[in-house]
């Protein structure tokens, strides 16, 4: 009985699962050239990150703008452990995840007192504070501003010669993030989180332990975001505070989730699959000649997306289907029904 919840699947779920499995496990072997393989790896990592953000931002409805903190901690922990102590990034990845989780617990006491836009402001402040403290700490530790990882391929170093291997790794990460989302959404915790998202006061009055369930979503989100940070560092092999702790990253993740469909299981992947190629094309076409031009377009898109498609492409799809269904049953153009 308790497991059947996770097994009942609609054709739509199956289609989503098939697409994800194809992109994560088959597409890397399709002999993509270097350029497309790079885009694929980026899509997969960002899709995983956006899915992780979606756990707290979409499922629980708490718009964090500070996820760069967890991303950066993941990237820095594994890189520092590898470069200075020779510890494998596989372990460093878990260490980063644990540190991010601890940070999430620590800040949860304050940030969970706030709702909506104040939660966003407070988490934004957390992300920025971590970046400033990291730069400040260079006064006491002999730490260069930017850190490169030497290219020594090997499984235990989590550095690979082939992009295919990276794509598989990133694909596995994405599948894990999506699986966590799927299980969470279908579990009681997921129902409680939806209740909290839709009306926190009503959920509280109904006896939902608000803080506990928000914290569960936040911890999962922080841990998975941190893992994504490690993967990105191992892929790019270069980190600096200005990029891994950037506000841009904290804005990108929600944007992908919103574009695809906030709170849905595959929405963040769809958002990443559209935005990453778009960004690559814009940078390529405009980045070299006019600095800033691609970000002007990017900002404009952000505005248009949230106003025209506040529930993302997934939401747009279901309202389209509703509209078509209504048209079919009423036998005429969709009409507003009187209240």
């Amino acid at each position: 009985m308790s497991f059947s919840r996770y097994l009942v699947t609609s054709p739509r779920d199956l289609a989503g699962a098939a697409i994800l499995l194809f992109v994560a496990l088959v597409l890397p072997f399709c002999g993509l050239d270097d350029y497309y393989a790079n885009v694929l790896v980026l899509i997969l990592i960002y899709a995983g990150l956006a899915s992780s953000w979606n756990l707290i931002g979409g499922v629980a409805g708490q718009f964090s703008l500070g996820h760069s903190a967890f991303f950066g901690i993941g990237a820095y922990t594994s890189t520092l452990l590898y470069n200075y102590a020779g510890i494998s990034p596989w372990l460093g990845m878990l260490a980063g995840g644990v540190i991010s989780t601890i940070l999430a617990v620590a800040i949860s006491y304050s940030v969970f007192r706030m709702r909506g836009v104040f939660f966003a402001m407070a988490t934004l402040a957390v992300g920025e504070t971590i970046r400033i403290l990291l730069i400040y700490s260079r006064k006491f530790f002999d730490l260069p501003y930017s850190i490169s990882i030497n290219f020594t391929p090997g499984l235990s170093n989590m550095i690979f010669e082939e992009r295919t291997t990276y794509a598989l790794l990133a694909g596995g990460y994405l599948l894990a993030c999506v699986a966590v989302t799927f299980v969470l959404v279908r579990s009681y915790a997921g129902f409680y989180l939806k209740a909290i998202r839709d009306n926190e006061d009503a959920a509280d009055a109904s006896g939902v332990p608000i803080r506990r369930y928000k914290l569960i979503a936040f911890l999962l989100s922080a841990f998975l975001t941190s893992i994504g940070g490690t993967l990105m560092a191992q892929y790019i092999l270069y980190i600096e505070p200005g990029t891994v702790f950037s506000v841009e990253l904290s804005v990108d993740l929600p944007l992908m989730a919103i574009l695809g469909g906030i709170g849905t299981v595959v929405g963040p992947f769809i958002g990443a699959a559209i935005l990453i190629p778009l960004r690559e094309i814009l940078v390529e076409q405009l980045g070299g000649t006019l600095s800033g031009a691609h970000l002007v377009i990017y900002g404009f898109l952000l505005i248009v997306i949230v106003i025209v498609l506040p529930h993302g492409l997934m939401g747009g799809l279901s309202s389209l289907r509703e509209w078509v269904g209504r048209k079919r049953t009423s036998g005429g153009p969709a009409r507003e029904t009187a209240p």
Partner: protein
Amino acid sequence: MLVFVQLVVSGVLLGGVYALAALGLNLIFGVAKVVNFAHGEFLMLGMYAGFWLMTTTGINPYFGAPLIAIVFFGVGLLFYAGLMRFTIYKPELTQVFATLGLGILLQNAALMAWSADYRTLQVMPAGWDSINVLGAFIPTNRLIAFAYSVAILAAVIVFLRTTFIGRAIEAVSQDLMSARLMGIDPNRVFLITFGLGIALTGVAGAVLVPSFYAFPSVGSFFVLASFVVVVLGGLGSVVGTIAGGLVLGLVETTVGYFAPDLKEATHFVLLIGLLTVRPHGLLGIKGAEKETLK
């Protein structure tokens, strides 16, 4: 002792600057319950407006401020009519990301138009850069910005309390439904509030440009400082903005004296700490942080 006097003087002057920078944000938040994440970018545009006014026509931004206020009032009307009108009754998520998007757009448009160069103005004649009062060193530009801040804050308070439009704005800020029942058209009030808020932000930028560098991403520094001021002082409270500005100015100056690199971190630590302990701010009304238009 002298250090102490100097810290207090610098802190108060900086606090006035912060209060002025945050006023437009707080006004718009208080009335329309929208946190404008593009606030810093409007301030940046104000700084460039002050800069270009002086470099092209020779009009000192301190005297040209009324002109900039008029232009930015128009910008604010456009901001509401062209964008915020579509988001104002929508969920907060839409407002946050629409204004964030506008911020990214404006910042990079400025980068395209004016490059990433740091620009500032030399408005004071040589020898008038600073004055010395009882051993405390006071930069003249900061002093003038502070005077502007006090004058504008006073004018805004008088405007809101005495004029018909001002009281309509106050009414909508206190209770949208009742204001509507009294025959106030909230959409017109929102329009005027956005115009006013952006005009104040533009003037703030213009009078700051002689003492701060203008560059396309300067807004991200000021927007966070403004959030802190608004949260410190109380959401929607104009008097609170002054208090919030002064507290932030004094804390930042003191921390900056002992650990200059941590100056910026004080903003965030204050913001998180205060939101935790008193989400409604020092002078704000309890519960204001949970208010939305709906």
